[in-house]
């Protein structure tokens, strides 16, 4: 069995390297121009946000409406580190993630004891409080924002962080810890009865999700060059939530696909950007009523789907 495991992860590694090599070459040679490579970087950042939020919302079953707050923490901390110290970018990004996860620990310990609706509102409240605090700190640029951040987020960096995020979260999910986390979503009372310290695992999942949100924030600040607290309000949190819900709560591949499509689409359809804010929520409502499981539900995209399709076709012919 170990050989088979090695085989599939080897294949995955090859696929990842191939995609990287292809995209990187296209960008370096200018086939993909500056504008589109920027969109690709934004897609990667949103994938990290969606995948990390899915951990707490989709896998642990705790609705969180304050993810943008953790993104903000990572963004501002790393920006300050770059602007005021000589710290290398990668270190700044990681520290941004760590500080965001510390915030999550502080916020999570008192609030994860609350039931679903109340926890959701509390995270929204904390997200807004973080925004207000940033607005009132002149050191961070206040309401008008922090500018002059060197644009250092290039494709290779964003890609590597995205792949690491996906691999780490996926590995956590496919372990005893992941099963424990999912059991909380499925039936918290039964999970406790089977020995799962549900509070501990909720904290784990919340803190890990915040860590990666911080990383995404740090990548974002060095992608866009300036930060405004208003971009990290509850609307941004809901934006990320929409990625997760569209792709399927509990599906990592769903989040990757939906974050990609939903980042690319508004850019490609610039002309209807005006209507985006009407189409988006309308689509959300329709989705919840007719297909609440989103694109992939809680399944992962795999080659099995194609095998099943092939088998079904054979049955129909006979």
């Amino acid at each position, binding site marked *: 069995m170990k050989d088979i495991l090695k085989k599939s992860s080897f294949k995955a590694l090859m696929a990842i390297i191939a995609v990287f090599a292809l995209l990187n070459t296209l960008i370096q040679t200018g086939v993909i121009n500056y504008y589109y490579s920027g969109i690709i970087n934004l897609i990667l950042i949103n994938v990290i946000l969606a995948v990390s939020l899915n951990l707490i*919302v989709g896998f642990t*079953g705790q*609705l969180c409406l304050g993810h943008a707050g953790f993104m903000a923490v990572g963004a501002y901390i790393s920006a300050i580190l770059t602007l005021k110290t000589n710290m290398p970018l990668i270190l700044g990004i990681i520290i941004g993630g760590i500080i965001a996860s510390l915030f999550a620990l502080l916020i999570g310990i*008192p*609030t994860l004891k*609350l039931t*679903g*609706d*109340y926890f*959701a*509102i*509390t995270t*929204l*409240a*904390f997200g*807004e*409080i973080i925004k*207000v*605090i940033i*607005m*009132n700190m002149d050191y961070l640029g206040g309401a008008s924002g922090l500018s002059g951040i060197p644009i250092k987020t290039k494709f290779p960096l964003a890609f590597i962080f995205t792949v690491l995020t996906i691999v780490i979260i996926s590995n956590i999910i496919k372990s005893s810890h992941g099963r424990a986390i999912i059991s909380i979503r499925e039936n918290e*009372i039964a999970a406790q009865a089977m020995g799962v310290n549900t509070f501990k695992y909720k904290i784990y999942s919340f803190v890990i999700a915040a860590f990666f949100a911080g990383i995404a924030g740090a990548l974002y600040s060095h992608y866009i060059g300036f930060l405004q607290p208003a971009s990290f309000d509850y609307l941004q949190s*809901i934006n990320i*939530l929409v990625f997760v*819900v569209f792709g399927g*709560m509990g599906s990592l591949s769903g989040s990757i696909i939906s974050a990609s499509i939903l980042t690319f689409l508004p850019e490609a359809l610039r002309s209807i950007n*005006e*209507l985006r*804010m*009407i189409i*988006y*929520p*309308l689509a*959300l*409502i329709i989705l*919840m*009523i007719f297909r*609440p499981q989103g694109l992939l539900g809680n399944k992962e995209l795999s080659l099995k789907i194609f095998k099943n399709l092939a088998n079904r076709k054979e049955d129909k012919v006979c």
Partner: protein
Amino acid sequence: MEFLQQLINGLALGSVYALLALGYTMVYGIINLINFAHGEIYMIGAFIGYFASTTFNLSLIPTLIISMIGSAILGMIIEKVAYKPLRNSPRITLLITAIGMSLLLQNGMRFLVGPNPKPYKDLIPNSFINLGNVQINSKTLLMLGVSALLVLLLQFIVYKTKVGLAMRAASYDIEAASLMGINVNNTISTTFAIGSALAGIAGVLVAIAYPSINPYMGTMPGLRAFVAAVLGGIGSIPGALVGGVLIGLIETLTKAYISTSFSDAIVFSVLIIILLIKPSGLLGKKTNEKV
């Protein structure tokens, strides 16, 4: 005295929050949903009032009544279209739908009327009453007066009519209520209608006092009214009143004596504190999940 003045302002604002909080609390009590779109109904009520008074040149009372009726109808439509199909869905699905509805209404309204704020007509003359050192604006009086009237009306409906009895029964145990012959669908619609009517009229009252309305005016008051409902005890009607008044006072006094930008942070902090100390709220009761 300045403090007394602020107190009166806070009470007036609180009465508006109370009207909004009542809508949240009644809906949550009956179907366990935090209706994120409630703030938008408040905003649309204000806009209905705007069109009634400006385009159709109606005076105060007809404007108030039309916006109440319009908001009630809107609330019922939203429930029928978006929430009813999801009555047996997991909570997260409902919450997301409510969030989507809120965004749809805001941006839909913006699309219809444009993002620029609209000025409200002066529906009552701008006069003052002087009580000692305190000046009370006629519009503030209107807010307090109409709110008080509506709350009394609500008390009558909820505690002295069959409809109200049905609402109370359904809020305790919706299945049992339906088994007892109560038409649960109608009861839920009625609850939404009443809650939305209160929200709509609150919108008009505020628009009269602060005569500029825009499609995004519902978000923050909606959130603050929700905090008020939770503070008072979500599901408890007297709780909504108490919570509303408290939040109105806290916000006004914070803006007056600390700073405007911090008032949001403080209101949200109140929410967090109450959820940590007594999640059932000041006047609410704790319920246990049966294992």
